[in-house]
């Protein structure tokens, strides 16, 4: 049975390493098909209602227990790596666990709250607690900047000597709230796994708790052979879920993540991974419902749902310095309502956006939409016309997959022109930067005066890509900007220019 652990470790790395690299890759060289590894995570599959994936995940849980937590979940494997690394820092004797009582009160409350808040229409807690998305935020907000930093250092060194083989990559701008959220979870997860193995998964993670309930019925499970066990406690010391009680010879299956570490620890071969219904077993007692828990549920629920349902704020300007606008959602988001409830802010679209126009929101979508992606235009940063990467990598169906031809018509916003800020109006000089950058010529130049031309916007044609806003040189207030929409519509297809068919045979000079 000792081979089971090796298989588990091997498989988990097969999932973990590609997922990590997918989040870190800033070259765009990794195939976008890797997003399939994100779609098979529990929460994304639940949100996109992918019944095939859900069926397979369910089957896996009913067969093998919480194998998801040990193999597929990147946050789970990340914790195993942290736990494994602690060996470098402590003496072998201290690298031990002992049985701990389950934190039922906390874990079932969190699970219940997450479900209740979601049923009432907000995915705030799902966003905060989905382990895959938490891993995504940690990778993209903490690990990725370090990798890019190293790359850029190398690029500058080489570039100075005329070697251009490594090129500079822009860091995603620093959003304090997004960073803090990722850092907070990084601290909590790392500390808990450093000292207590998988206690994050068994105390806080709602997916872990939910799968724990399922694994009570799994066909295979870990069990101790009471007749041959000598109670040496080796398995208990190895159990990072702290769910093996050597004294009573019981295993708390709800917390066992099927890591199989215990199997290889037993010198007497008394602990097995076996068929559950071989013989009668004592059932695990159901967690009792106390009135204290109910009060806790109610009050916390009230507080969290207030936060969760806070509407996205429209920033209203008193003067021209702040644009009055809704947050601009990525293409394929459909409506604000759909997007907000389906996006778990895993950041994969943000890390894949070649233009880096997608950024994690602070409070633009309200508290419940913290770190969900929105578009922020700045110099030469806008949504590329011929690009649909964000819609293809989204694992949760928050962004509907748009083929490139559909994406070109997806209206994520509408450009608004403010003549009194325009250089052509204020300086009476040619500019046209906005029209130059407009891919559909929704922004085009019309005659103004004295041979000058000034921009005009045809709203039907505008996709809201923000190229115009990104390049507008007017200071301090841009003369053209994109207004967000709450429901994304389809823009009109731009009509082609009149073809020129005559043959030119002359130089013309």
């Amino acid at each position, binding site marked *: 049975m000792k081979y089971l652990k090796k298989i588990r470790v091997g498989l988990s790395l097969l999932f973990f390493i590609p997922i990590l690299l997918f989040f870190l890759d800033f070259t765009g060289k990794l195939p976008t098909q890797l997003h399939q590894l994100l779609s098979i995570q529990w929460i994304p599959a639940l949100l996109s209602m992918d019944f095939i994936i859900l069926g397979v995940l369910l089957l896996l849980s009913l067969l093998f227990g919480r194998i998801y937590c040990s193999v597929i979940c990147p946050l789970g494997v990340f914790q195993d790596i942290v736990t494994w690394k602690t060996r470098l820092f402590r003496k072998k004797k201290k690298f031990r666990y002992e049985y701990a009582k389950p934190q039922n009160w906390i874990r079932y409350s969190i699970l219940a709250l997450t479900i209740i808040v979601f049923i009432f229409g907000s995915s705030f807690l799902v966003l905060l607690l989905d382990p895959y998305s938490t891993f995504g935020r940690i990778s993209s907000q903490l690990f990725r900047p370090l990798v890019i930093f190293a790359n850029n250092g190398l690029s500058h060194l080489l570039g100075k000597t005329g070697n251009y083989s490594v090129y500079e990559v822009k860091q995603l701008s620093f959003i304090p709230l997004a960073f803090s959220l990722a850092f907070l979870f990084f601290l909590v997860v790392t500390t808990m796994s450093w000292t207590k193995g998988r206690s994050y998964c068994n105390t806080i993670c709602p997916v872990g708790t939910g799968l724990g309930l399922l694994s009570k019925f799994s066909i295979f499970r870990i069990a101790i052979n009471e007749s041959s066990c000598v109670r040496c406690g080796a398995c208990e010391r190895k159990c990072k879920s702290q769910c093996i009680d050597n004294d009573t010879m019981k295993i708390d299956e709800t917390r066992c993540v099927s890591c199989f570490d215990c199997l290889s620890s037993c010198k007497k071969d008394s602990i097995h991974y076996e068929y559950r219904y071989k013989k009668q077993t004592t059932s695990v007692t159901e967690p009792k419902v106390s009135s204290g828990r109910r009060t806790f549920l109610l009050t916390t629920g009230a507080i969290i749902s207030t936060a969760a349902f806070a509407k996205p704020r429209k920033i209203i300007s008193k003067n021209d310095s702040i644009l009055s606008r809704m947050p601009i959602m990525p293409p394929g988001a459909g409506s604000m309502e759909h997007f907000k409830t389906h996006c778990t802010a895993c950041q994969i679209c943000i890390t894949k956006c070649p233009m880096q126009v997608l950024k994690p929101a602070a409070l633009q979508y309200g508290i419940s939409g913290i770190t969900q992606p929105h578009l922020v235009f700045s110099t030469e940063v806008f949504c590329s016309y011929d690009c649909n990467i964000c819609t293809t990598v989204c694992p949760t169906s928050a962004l509907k997959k748009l083929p490139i031809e559909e994406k070109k018509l997806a209206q994520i916003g509408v450009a608004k022109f403010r003549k009194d800020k325009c250089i052509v109006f204020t300086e009476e000089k040619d500019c046209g930067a906005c029209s130059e950058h407009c891919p559909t010529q929704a922004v085009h130049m019309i005659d103004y005066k004295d041979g000058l031309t000034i921009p005009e916007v045809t709203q039907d044609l505008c996709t809201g890509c923000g190229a115009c806003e990104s390049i507008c040189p007017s200071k301090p207030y841009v003369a053209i900007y994109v207004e967000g929409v709450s429901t994304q519509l389809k823009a009109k297809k731009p009509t082609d220019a009149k073809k020129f068919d005559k043959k030119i045979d002359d*130089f013309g000079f």
Partner: protein
Amino acid sequence: MKRRDFFKSAALVGLTSVIKTDLFGTAVKSGSVAVHSEPDLVAVMGGEPEAMLLRGLKEFGGIKTFVKKGQKVVIKPNIGWDRTPELAANTNPDLVAALVKQCKLAGASEILVFDHTCHDWKKSYTNSGIEAAVNAAGGKMVPGNDESFYRDVQIPNGVKMTSNKIHQAILDCDVWFNVPILKHHGGAKNSISMKNLMGIVWDRKFFHKNDLHQCIADIATSHKKPALNIVDAYRIMKSNGPQGKSEADVVLLKSLIISPDFVAADTAALKMFSQVQPTDIKDVRHIELAEKAHVGTMNLESLNVKRIKMN
């Protein structure tokens, strides 16, 4: 920039301009022996990009007139947009590759190609077809998106713009070629060789903010000048420039205009363009402004112009 560096580059710029005048300037400008001298401008029509380039360069005495063995060469095409070659938003990749090959033959030690793109630089390099063509021909693509590769340069003759940052590849090379494509342009009215210079500088917004045309003329006065402007008019974009919407904006002219003179090249190219889409040269103000700054001449009659038809 350190003062010492400034003197060094000033000396270098001075030196190159002297060499160039010796090569093909004085004889013609003195006006005495126009017939047998090197041409000021060559226009070729009716061939494929590579054939037209070779034919045109032949009039100047071949590539070796400009590129010496062991020299570092830079080619600056227009790669501003994430568009395929058929849409004529970027310089024709076959033309760029042919020029790389020529420089290679002349013994250039290094041939770098770059543009400070408007769209995502990686996508523009790839989808323009230029990256693949240059690599295959033995040149090297250089990123143009990194501010640290740009160095401050003074533009003493600038009217509106007296300094900007220019890519180090241009500043450090021995000789460079400006290879624009002939296009309609919503802002500048037309984009030819001088407009193409916006891709060697870092701060492009400055142009739009401070009288676009004057700034384009300013940049043409100052920096290390290209050995030649090679205007790609194989496919031109007649409308909806500079990006274009579809192939309906594209007209096949199968032409090429070569001249060391910015103003002459742009004047000739605009006249060719006007046969498709009539454009008043007065509206493309930077051409006139550049002439006023003595960058070159709009008077094609005063120049030795060669017109060559290939079949």
